[in-house]
């Protein structure tokens, strides 16, 4: 359940010490290759936590179900806002549902 990186959108977070997806992956699976793009060491080792997908500032990463477990093709994409997240989910029949909720409270210091 590889995170699929779109090389047209990915720039390896050029200028950052570590790309956002590298930072996000709890399994140390993402790395920026000599081509300057993010890759996954071992697609089979991915947990599908979607942390990399959420962190990518260019929306260049997609999580896809392996075909042995889910049919072609569904999509789930997050848009991170300030203290809120919006998810767009399209199922294999083309039906799209959007979910939006707060993921942080405003903290008064």
């Amino acid at each position, binding site marked *: 359940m590889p995170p699929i990186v779109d090389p047209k959108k990915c720039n390896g977070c050029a200028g950052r010490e570590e790309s956002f997806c590298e930072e996000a992956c709890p399994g140390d699976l993402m790395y920026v290759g000599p081509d300057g793009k993010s890759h996954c060491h071992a697609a089979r080792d991915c*947990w599908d936590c979607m942390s990399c997908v959420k962190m990518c500032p260019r929306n260049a990463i997609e999580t896809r179900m392996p075909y042995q477990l889910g049919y072609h093709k569904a999509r789930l994409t997050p848009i991170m806002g300030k203290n809120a997240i919006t998810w767009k989910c399209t199922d294999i029949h083309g039906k799209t549902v959007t979910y939006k909720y707060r993921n*942080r409270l405003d903290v008064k210091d």
Partner: protein
Amino acid sequence: MPRMAQNPQSLDAVETVRVDCDVLIIGGGNAGCFSAVEAAKIDPTLSVVIMEKAHIMRSGACAAGMDAINTYIPEGKTPEDLVRWCRSQVGGGPIREDLALSNARELNESVDDLERWGLPILRDEDGKIRYRGAWDISIHGEQLKPIMAEKAIEAGAKVYNRVACTQLLMDGPRCIGALGFGVRDGRFYVFRAGAVINATGGAAGLYKSYTADATDSHHQIWMCPYCVGTGYAVGIRQGAEMTSMEQRWVATRTKDFCGPVDTISVGYKAPIINAKGERIMQSRYAHLGADKAPRYIRANAPMEEWLAGRGPTYCDTRGMDPELANRMMTDYLNERPSFVLFLASRGQDPVEEPIEIYGSDPYIVGGHTQSGFWVDLERMTTVPGLFAAGETAGGNPNKFVGGCAAEGKLALRGAAAYIKGLELPEPDPAQVAAEKERVFAPLLRGEDFDGLRALEMEERLQRLMDEYAGGTSQFYRTNEERLDYALKHIAMLRDQTRYLKAADLHDLMAVHEVVDRIDVAEVLCHHLRFRKETRWQGWQTRSDYPETDPAYDCHVESRRDPATGEIETFTRPYEQLVPGDRYKP
């Protein structure tokens, strides 16, 4: 730490980094972050270091997020009530009621901390916290991990990201730090500390997951697959006493995607049904409390249906109010977003079609069941200087997020008291050199070395444990002969670790993970073998001893002799501190 370093040409080329601190926290997760925050609160002069295998912002079991805090004491209830519930959930125990009580007294304040830090806890129109069951509350916890991590950093903890722990640093019988290596920078790290809090995750991947069979996905499991039992393993190797390792965590999970089910069954009251539409809990487990039956009964029930030929099994979400269904999907997006993707990839609307469920692979997770280190009330293990909190501390089940947070605070207080006036010796150079050699050897065997990949050994272990030590394919059953078989082959695997070979630093981490898993699996098999009864079906099922035996109404303990590697097993008595019927909440 941007890119992975090149492989070293020789051991001498590996740089050694020495770090001194008052308190070293291994694992910047739920418990570890709370330890760090507590340190700043009680003594801002304490120097605290966190050794973190991934990056603290999104590491470990909380990486994907969370949709509930499973324990928060409601108005009108007491810590004692929580302990009674906790005890009944594990079939009357035996549990460590001293630990459970001290945790319960610290619990609500820890959860309140999370809300003060910005975690959205769902409340009704009157501002009252929304309970989804008797004790658990709903949250929008997509940001849970970064929220905790930010606070640990704000508290002044120095975080070493991408440093994997491989061994404890010892001064005779006492723990004075930990050793490890940078999975990106390729350095060898020596952390010397007054006290060490072992706050890693539990152990996943000891058993094969059925979703790994003939799929592209090896890690489609419920527990974080990067929590591999290193916390337990480093303690086991130094002779720490382990408790209740046989009480594995097995849970009912969504089928073909090992996602949470409490969200549906507890949060949205969707009944569990079998192929014939029969409500299993009501029809077959009414005498054990039906929907409120102990957790292992509920976990095991769907698998018993499959075994009896009455599968598939489902959580019946049909006819659910669409508004509620939308809320349920939002919960999933907070905890396991890819489950929503999975349903979409099946073209499934839960309002029309029920959600299929099945048993998970077994895990050793002391924040859920009670396997882990035997600790005293200060959370010190039997190794002086080594404390445990969260998944690693045993005897105290049903901690979950709030309880792990609470225990992180308790362990820090214990550690801070322990280091008062303590003199620290210099690390023993021979010990450090030997570990450095052990750690990097798989990377230095040379291209021509005809060896093994970590993955091969990991899969061999997982198949072995699945078939012989009571995995999913065996409906969690095992017996004396199978455990002997497993132990024989675990010994062979350990012997063959000398053939393990790593291609790069990431791979080197995988090598040490499989070494750690072997050590944990061995102890687990000894515990399963010792308990000659069946006390918690599913979690611990002996087909040769299918009944509960009062002789085993005690804690099963073990200790590995650091010199010989021999594992001794023994018992400790159960002490009931909270009065009441042990089997009732």
